């Protein structure tokens, strides 16, 4: 039994729903009690879709358990096929239906439906959402692009005429919608045709065309890794797995794709502003900023590299909730000299953040909340997603434009360079401090930030501040004041000091300055 308030991943049938909702012409008949229909709102509310996801739930009740839940499943199956007329259906059970053991696969097979039925075995009590998505996609690929009876060596087309599939983007993925557009444009820019993008936007019959491509591009190994492995073994398709996140990784990605396609990789485009922005004088203040990174394995590992190599940050924490990819994250952590955190317990992640005292958090929606409580700047880099992670504007994480986006979205939560200096210089200015209202609001706005700090700083205060020290603390710019307070209190507590004086404040400052 695991105690949790928030979870990073949903159950595996939600992963299957993400695949169904990504594709056209596919319908999911899910044996599940009525409460499980909440999952619809992941798509209609969080992803802001204009259609319901293609899922029919049996929504059985307690009174049905004594009667015939299997019959309810069969009726739901028949009705869904008749009403929605899909090319194929996937069938499965959620956690509760798994316990009542109705065998959706056998029941659906017995119906002799006029369309393909792909049964899913998704063990709810041991697996999670990403695994469920990967397994569903793999089952679909196997069903619609079956292994040849007599495997023959793949005939590779001449260089310059090769095509590829792009695998992995799904509904509810973190910026998958925009990534796929960016990556597709880059690949086509190499003169490589994109045979198929899947699962997002593909139909079951499209999947039958997967083997026509010369190789595969796996953007999100959490979702397409299993299917790509299988395609390699059974259809001889090599694949590229470098996620093109950041300037360097994008270049490596393009080199790898160009290598498989037999073409020459291009020079970076003029629209790539990122390396210059990072070198510009205003970015000096980014140097050595301590950043804590947590997310799915793909985004976390890529973020660590961008943070360290392309923004000049110090990675002070790196972790993932994707246990299936723990090895990759451990290997990356070694590179940055940090202890890898492999956990899906968000409380453990919070503890690690408090211990690491970062100046920036790159995480998921959960870390965003931790950051809010600890008053640390934060940018979201990975699922689990929230409605604000589906921005109206084009905002990829991958490719050249993705690198620009990363610069903006990770740097903006931090105070800007010149601004940081000005705030220090003018902190005693009568209209330029945290209690003064913004100048454009005149004198009407309330000065609430001091009380806000009182309520938002959650750490205990075992030591007292002298009036003078408290006054001196207020001279520190408000955006670093919370941190200064915490550091000083920690410093005092560790030394058994009862009172914090001005001396203590500056002793602590000297101690923590790097």
């Amino acid at each position, binding site marked *: 039994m695991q105690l949790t308030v928030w979870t990073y991943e949903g159950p595996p049938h939600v992963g299957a729903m993400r695949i169904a909702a990504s594709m056209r012409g596919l319908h999911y008949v899910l044996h599940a009690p009525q409460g499980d229909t909440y999952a*619809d709102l992941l798509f209609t509310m969080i992803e802001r879709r204009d259609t319901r996801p293609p899922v029919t739930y049996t929504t059985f009740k307690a009174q049905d*358990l004594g009667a015939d839940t299997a019959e309810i499943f069969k009726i739901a199956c028949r*009705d869904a096929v008749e009403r929605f007329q899909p090319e194929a259906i996937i069938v499965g059970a959620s956690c509760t239906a798994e316990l009542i053991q109705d065998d959706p696969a056998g029941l659906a097979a017995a119906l002799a439906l006029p369309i393909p039925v792909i049964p899913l075995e998704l063990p709810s009590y041991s697996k999670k959402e990403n695994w469920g998505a990967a397994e569903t996609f793999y089952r679909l690929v196997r069903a619609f692009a079956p292994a040849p009876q007599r495997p023959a060596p793949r005939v590779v087309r001449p260089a310059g005429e090769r095509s590829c599939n792009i695998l992995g983007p799904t509904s509810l993925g973190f910026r998958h919608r925009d990534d796929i557009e960016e990556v597709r444009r880059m690949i086509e820019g190499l003169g490589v045709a994109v045979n198929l993008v899947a699962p997002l936007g593909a139909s079951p019959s499209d999947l039958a065309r997967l083997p026509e491509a010369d190789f595969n591009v796996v953007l999100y190994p959490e979702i397409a890794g299993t299917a790509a492995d299988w395609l390699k073994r059974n259809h001889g398709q090599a694949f590229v797995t470098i996620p093109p996140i950041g300037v360097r990784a994008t270049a490596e990605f393009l080199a790898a794709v160009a290598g498989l396609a037999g073409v020459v990789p291009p020079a970076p485009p003029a629209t790539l502003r990122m390396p210059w922005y990072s070198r510009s004088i205003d970015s000096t203040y980014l140097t050595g900023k301590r950043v804590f990174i947590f997310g799915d394995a793909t985004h976390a590992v890529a973020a660590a590299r961008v943070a360290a190599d392309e923004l000049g940050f110090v990675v002070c924490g790196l972790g993932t909730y994707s246990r299936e990819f723990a090895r990759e994250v451990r290997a990356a952590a070694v590179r940055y000299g940090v202890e890898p955190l492999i956990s899906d317990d968000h409380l453990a992640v919070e503890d690690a953040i408090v211990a690491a005292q970062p100046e920036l958090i790159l995480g998921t929606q959960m870390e965003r909340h931790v950051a809010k409580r600890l008053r640390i700047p934060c940018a979201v880099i990975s699922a689990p997603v929230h409605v604000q992670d589906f921005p109206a504007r084009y905002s990829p994480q991958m490719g050249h434009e993705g690198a620009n986006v990363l610069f903006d979205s990770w740097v903006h939560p931090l105070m800007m360079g010149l601004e940081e200096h000005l705030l220090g210089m003018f902190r005693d200015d009568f209209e330029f401090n945290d209690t003064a209202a913004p100048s454009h609001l005149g004198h009407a706005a309330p000065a609430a930030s001091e009380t806000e700090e009182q309520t938002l700083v959650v750490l205990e205060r075992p030591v007292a501040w002298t009036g003078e020290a408290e006054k001196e603390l207020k001279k520190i710019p408000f955006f670093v004041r919370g941190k200064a307070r915490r550091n000083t209190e920690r410093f005092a507590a560790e030394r058994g000091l009862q009172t914090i004086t001005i001396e203590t404040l500056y002793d602590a400052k000297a101690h923590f300055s790097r």
Partner: protein
Amino acid sequence: MNAMPPRIGAQDCGPAAPLRQRGQHEVFCGLTSIIWLHRKVQDAFFLIVGSRTCAHLMQSAAGVMIFAEPRFGTAIIEERDLAGMADLHEELDRVVARLLSRRPDIRMLVLVGSCPSEVIKLDLGKAAERLARLHAPATRVLHFSGSGIETTFTQGEDNFLAALVRELPAADAKAPPSLMVAGALPDVVEDQFRRIFDALGIGPVAFLPSRASSGLPAVGAATRVLLAQPYLGEAARALEARGATVLAAPFPLGEEGTTAWLRAAADAFGVAPGRFDAITRAGRRRAREAVGRRRAELEGRRVFLFPDSQLEPSIARFLAREAGAEIVEIGSPYLHRQHLAGEFALLPPGIPFSEGQDVDRQLDRCRAARPDLAVCGMGLANPLEAEGIATKWSIELVFTPVQGYEQAGDLAELFVRPLARRAVLKLGA
């Protein structure tokens, strides 16, 4: 079934013969009521004993993680628990011990049953008894089921209140009559009602649930109960089993509902009609004025209500009688005939009523009717908007203070806003 939806004749429906079609239900399960209960009872922690799905439901339905650390959580059942490798009760004790050491401020721990825990017949009653002994007197331990195979959305609150009722101390046999208002109300509404009851000379008055778990009111033969919510069947039964009398009344939505609801209490406590009129006069006037300002925007509008919270008949009554709307269909996940008798007596006759749901066929009816506004759950709202039908999320009716005189205008405004938005947007098709 893909053909035109069956026409519902007036004579076939209404509370006497509701339409019942068995198909997919599109409702939240009872676990979701924890989202408002944990804000209401401020020293309680709700621990769902369930699956990863339950935990995922709570964070998705609660949107969104609006609370950095809410007073609810999930003890996720894992494979080793089911395989018998771990003793579920021992595991639960371990989880609870960890939780209470993290949150020593918790005075009431509520174990909440889920679909999986019900299906594997995990005895939470036994667990609650054991844990109560272990953690007494610091923490009281209760249990109820919010499982989706037994409850929808608001019924979780019903089961919680029924569990609370079993904890209430017995009132003195010679105690004078007292009033208990059952059903979670926002604090501001509770305070307004308390002032009115005080002015009417009705008392002592207790609210269930109270804001702190230590404030459990006594119950007995002299207790008169006003239900603040129509979905409290189990709670009402439990209160009656403790000797209390449940007063029949419509629900306090809108001026008319609030007045009838207050009057039921006034009559039970022998308040003179003149005094009742004098005390409620100002509130009634304010409510009528506030709704009146919205009436022009709602008058004649055709409203379709999907089943969600069981508040639907009361909302329909308010919209029809006070806002002048035309009700196309009232859906409710479940109909408690006795508690809703007062509402149906006020509703215009012949409105089609459906109990339970086949969501696809209900959507067909909604599309065919082309209402001006559909009141529905979050899973349906954006798809209906995309089809050109304005929607009101029903969840706001549960989360927003809408009861009583001072909120009647707010209640009307909730339905006006989606229509007003359509009117102000100039975005083309």
